[in-house]
């Protein structure tokens, strides 16, 4: 039975005065695949541990389903074992002296289920995770991907209401990561279990998340589906963090020629003297022949990211930006650049609007 989760104004301070989380609030829907995304030190693992019960918030409360599992003000605290959650740790935390079978059976044996029931459930979950032939191996004799699936099996075998994943893909090499992401996403959709995944890798977040919350220094920056975070980033931090290659961001005075050329002065007049202009490399293109180009520039460098070709170009003498490049473009070429979309942020870094110039 999937459960929703409510994080209600949670703050966590580690002594002496390290603020890990500040007034974080969110509601996770039952069956949702929710991702908490943020750089190192953003507080995302702390948040996950508070939901699990391994840490206690300084202020605020957490509700899983209908039950208040922790309330800092009322002094309520439910032990991790009573929260009916499954958790997969970053290093998987498999018991090294036990076989995969014993690892997965461990939570059921604690619940004192009958032996044949335990066997049935272990085999079922092993089948679902395609590790049936690994059941009698010890963790040391398995690959990273296999260990991860055993860890997921152990978390799922007690049929929890909530599944917590702490950077589950960071210990996997690049190729396995892609299969693992798909695997986890499919599994989650089939089981319909409310899942929270914590990661610093935005590619992971975008691959699996229904909704993503971006955390920075313990403060929630934005919560929304991937498209929203990508297309309408709430501040320059998010804009620069999401997207690969990263967004071109320019901090300019409002009388800068770039602003005139792009014809956006009208949008920014009420927002102070400094403005941030953001252009995603995928939302601008360099071509040798373009009718409605905004700029003329010179190519400094051509590079590939994945299957796409980008050019780093110099425009207006002092600004260099990365844009999509047509096939025939080479280093040193003079090119015409067309900007499809741009994002404007005020002097505090907060989003003003997104426009197609």
């Amino acid at each position: 039975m999937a459960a929703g989760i409510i994080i209600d104004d949670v703050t966590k301070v580690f002594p002496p005065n390290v603020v890990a989380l500040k007034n974080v609030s969110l509601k996770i829907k039952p069956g949702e695949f929710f991702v908490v995304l943020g750089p190192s030190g953003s507080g995302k693992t702390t948040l996950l541990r508070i939901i699990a019960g391994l840490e206690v918030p300084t202020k605020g409360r957490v509700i899983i389903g209908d039950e208040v599992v922790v309330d800092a003000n009322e002094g309520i605290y439910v032990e991790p074992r009573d929260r009916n959650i499954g958790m997969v740790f970053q290093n998987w935390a498999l018991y090294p002296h036990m076989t995969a079978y014993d690892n997965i059976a461990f939570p059921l044996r604690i619940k004192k289920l009958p032996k044949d029931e335990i066997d049935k459930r272990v085999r079922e979950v092993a089948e679902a995770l395609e590790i049936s032939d690994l059941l009698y191996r010890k963790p040391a004799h398995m690959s990273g991907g296999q260990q991860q699936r055993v860890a997921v099996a152990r978390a799922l075998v007690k049929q929890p209401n909530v599944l917590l994943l702490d950077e589950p893909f960071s210990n996997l090499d690049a190729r396995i990561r892609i299969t693992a992401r798909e695997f986890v996403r499919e599994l989650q959709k089939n089981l319909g279990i409310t899942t929270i995944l914590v990661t610093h890798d935005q590619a992971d977040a975008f691959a699996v998340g229904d909704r993503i919350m971006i955390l920075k220094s313990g403060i929630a920056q934005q919560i929304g589906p991937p498209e929203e975070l990508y297309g309408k980033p709430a501040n320059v931090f998010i804009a620069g963090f999401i997207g690969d290659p990263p967004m071109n961001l320019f901090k300019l005075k409002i009388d800068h020629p770039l602003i005139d050329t792009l014809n956006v002065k009208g949008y920014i007049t009420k927002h102070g003297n400094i403005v941030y202009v953001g252009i995603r490399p995928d939302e601008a293109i360099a071509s040798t022949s373009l009718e409605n180009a905004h700029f003329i520039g010179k190519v400094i460098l051509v590079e590939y990211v994945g299957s796409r070709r980008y050019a780093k170009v110099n425009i207006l003498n002092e600004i260099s930006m990365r844009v999509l490049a047509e096939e025939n473009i080479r280093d040193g070429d003079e090119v015409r650049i067309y900007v499809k979309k741009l994002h404007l942020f005020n002097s505090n870094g907060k989003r003003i609007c997104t426009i197609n110039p």
Partner: protein
Amino acid sequence: MIASSLKEKLIFLTPILLITVILYIMIATSIYVSMSDWRSYKISLNFIGLRNYIELFSNPRFYAALRNNIIWIALFMVPTSFLGLVLAYIMVSTGKELIFRTVFLLPTAISMTVAGTLWVWMYASEGAVNTLLKAFNLSFLTKPWISDPSTALYALIFVTIWQYLGFAVIIFEAAIKGIDPSLIEAAQIDGASSLRIFWDIVVPQVRHGFLVAVPLLALSALKIFDIVYVATRGGPGLATDVLGYFMWETAFWSRFMADGAAIATIIFAISLGIVIPYALIALRRWFR
């Protein structure tokens, strides 16, 4: 330069090599003396083969002492290492390490001779132990602990457990701290109680702690001398006689150097029986 590096290695190795060589020369000399006829203040090194050993093996005192050492190893090793593990677990999981460490390391820090003297007073008929028992209305349990042949050995074994607990606690504290905390957390989320975590997670993970503690404790039990010397001199009768004390008395009191050397060699041989398997296991793990 490879040549000078070799020279440096030799310079650093020489002291250890020197000490090891001297050590083995001394052991070899001892073994030779054990097969000589040196039985007085005057040195006499005529080779007489294994005669001293044959006499030793027909001496009932040898078997009494050996039996006491075996009992000592059995009753001392197991409680000390196990109690050490339990205490270390409590210490680490409650976080009260400073208090625990102080309390349990103090006995280890004092010499065995001092410990022995302390406990002789405590074990006296009107000493601390009996007084405490009387205070708890347990007068029927009071005994002349170290003058009664049936209790003397066990009274002394208890003192060595008391003294070596700190040593075991330290070893297991290190072993427990080597356990990945996420294993404990995963077990908590899986629903395990503290006791369960102890048995199913901690104990299997500290196996290497036992590998260190057990041989060292066994060797200590084999070398017991000070406490017997200070407390009972091997008495009453032969109740607390151990090989170490037997050897000292034979060699340095009766001045039967050769026979003393024979006992020493026997102790050495038994120690090999403990050390060699330990070394083999440890080396096997290292090279796996």
